[in-house]
């Protein structure tokens, strides 16, 4: 086993264990943190596949931004575990049956030789001068420009929807108007009155 395989097995083990803990951890904050660990290990595995752009972006976007906000919310929620567990046993048979069925179906297909190493040959190492980021950028803005733009529209819709669903302009809110504050001049605030000096 060379160094690369050793690293892969290490990362894969951490990834699997962390993912398991995500669904078994009792504390939601712990679960979220295990998810962070899982993302991180997945990033490491991508790095081994020489997809450094994707690996780092995964860490940057998911670990650095999405999960932080996620934790932010989870930490502030008062999650009642007892209520979450309610009905677990009554739903278990149905859920387990469906889950088992899907696993079985998938195993039947995936365990076949359709997805073996013969069916999916190694694409071969890329040249030394190949820059992942540049290649991806080039593809995104040429061949895949249409789906790329569509994805940006979806994000725009998400913003519009989030604002439409959550923003409630409140009457009592007293936000400061920075522009008005800066534009204020002496005469608006101060009146110099000429007064005769008084004696005694």
């Amino acid at each position: 086993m060379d160094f690369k395989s050793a690293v892969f097995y290490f990362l894969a083990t951490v990834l699997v264990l962390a993912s398991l803990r995500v669904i078994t951890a009792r504390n939601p904050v712990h679960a979220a943190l295990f998810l962070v660990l899982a993302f991180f290990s997945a990033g490491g595995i991508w790095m081994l596949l020489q997809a450094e752009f994707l690996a780092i972006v995964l860490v940057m976007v998911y670990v650095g931004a999405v999960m932080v906000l996620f934790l932010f919310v989870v930490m502030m929620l008062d999650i009642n575990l007892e209520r979450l567990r309610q009905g677990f046993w009554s739903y278990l048979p149905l859920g387990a049956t469906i889950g088992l069925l899907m696993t079985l179906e998938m195993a039947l297909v995936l365990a076949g030789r359709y997805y073996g190493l013969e069916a999916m040959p190694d694409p071969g190492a890329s040249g030394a001068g190949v820059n992942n980021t540049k290649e991806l950028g080039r593809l995104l803005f040429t061949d895949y420009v249409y789906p790329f733009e569509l994805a940006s529209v979806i994000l725009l819709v998400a913003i519009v929807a989030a604002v439409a669903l959550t923003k409630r302009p409140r009457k009592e809110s007293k936000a400061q108007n920075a522009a008005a504050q800066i534009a204020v001049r002496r005469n608006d605030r101060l009146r110099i009155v000429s007064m005769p000096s008084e004696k005694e």
Partner: protein
Amino acid sequence: MNFLMPDFYPAAAEIFLLAMACVILLLDLVLTQKQRWIIGLLTQATLVGCAVITIMTASGQVVLTFSNMFVDDLFADFLKLLVYFSVSVMLVYSRGYLALRGLDKGEFYLLVLFATLGMMVMISASHFLTIYLGLELLSLSLYALVALDRDSARATEAAMKYFVLGAMASGLLLYGMSMLYGATGTLEIGGVAQAIYHGVANKTVLVFGLVFVVSGLAFKLGVVPFHMWIPDVYQGAPTAVTLFIGSAPKLAAFAMTLRLLVYGLFELAEQWQLMLMMLAVLSIALGNLAAIAQSNLKRMLAYSTISHMGYMLLGLISGVAAGDRHFALNAYSSAMYYTVSYVMMSLGAFGMILLLSRAGFEAENLDDFKGLNQRSPWFAAMMGMLMFSMAGVPFFVGFFAKFSVLLAVVDTGQVWLAVVAVFFSLIGAFYYLRVVKLMYFDQAIDTAPIKANLDMRLLLSANGLAVALFGIFPQAIMSLCTFTLLRSL
């Protein structure tokens, strides 16, 4: 590094719509509450502009652009025009309703426009990626629209259900697509068809992927057993949004089904026809039976949608019989005709609910329609015609829609299927005709005068008359459907 600038011309309508949506988004920022009507007007103008562009750019050829991810053919142009038209009608119907409930915000129009863009993308998709992105664009806008009435607990619950189930359906669809990709090595719909035709793809993996794709499609079409979201969403959403969900997206879902199953996986027709047949029979049975038990009109129409989608599927499953493919054109155009006529009827029926609703009052219960004849004989007649048409009573548009799909089924020799469909259609007639009975033979509970804008009254009347008119001249739409499909397949 060879890259040719893509041809933007076939996608001009999409680009125009997106540009206008951004303009409206910015304009909404500066307009005051009193000037809000500009937004509605501009939205209508955008739709008209799109229609003009679509007509002008229609070449009658099958044109691929954007690295074969976008296809422009007559089928797409025709469906897009219908989408613009039904969205436009929907906006007219819902104007008064939204204003009374404080929902006529810029966001409503924006989300509707973005949903329209999503439908256009789906209709013109020739790549799994664009199908998925179009679908997500449409769904995301719809989830937000359902929840737009933030203070209504029912709407929020409906949106939540819709979102969770919709996300799951998207997951199923994606999973199926990834399987198809694994088997064929391409995401292009044309490429997939080629790969299957040449037999390079592994059959087991293909069928496995097909199961997931069909499940995902069934979710989006809302057929049994993937129908759970339909009644709750239809009932919970503001009626204007229900009207929207019940109309144009059905056209897009039909286009998506056709593109995926017929364009991409035609070689597997035997397999998916079997799956769709089960879905169709279940939907027709459950939709019609469950609708009888409803006292809420929106919920009843939701179940009626499920059964109608089942009938539509009947058209799709009679394309290939015992390896013989010459039924295909006839069968698919009958399914398309069914979808178009369903959209027409659905617009009218939900439009009637909007017409009778007032501030703080939703005319969504069957009892609200009692004695409508005494209040407004004209609109009672319109509603009567819509219900007759939905029930499939002869010489309305719904009759010919059912007739054509049943004919397609009988053509392929599945007589028993046609008998089952007719049987449940007779059961279904009961609850449609109950509405007619309530309107004409019962005493009115609610005697408030019907107030509505003139444009809505006119359009709704036209809608009702169209249902009758196209029933007398069914060939008008039918031949259009056949023609566009012939030129695009």
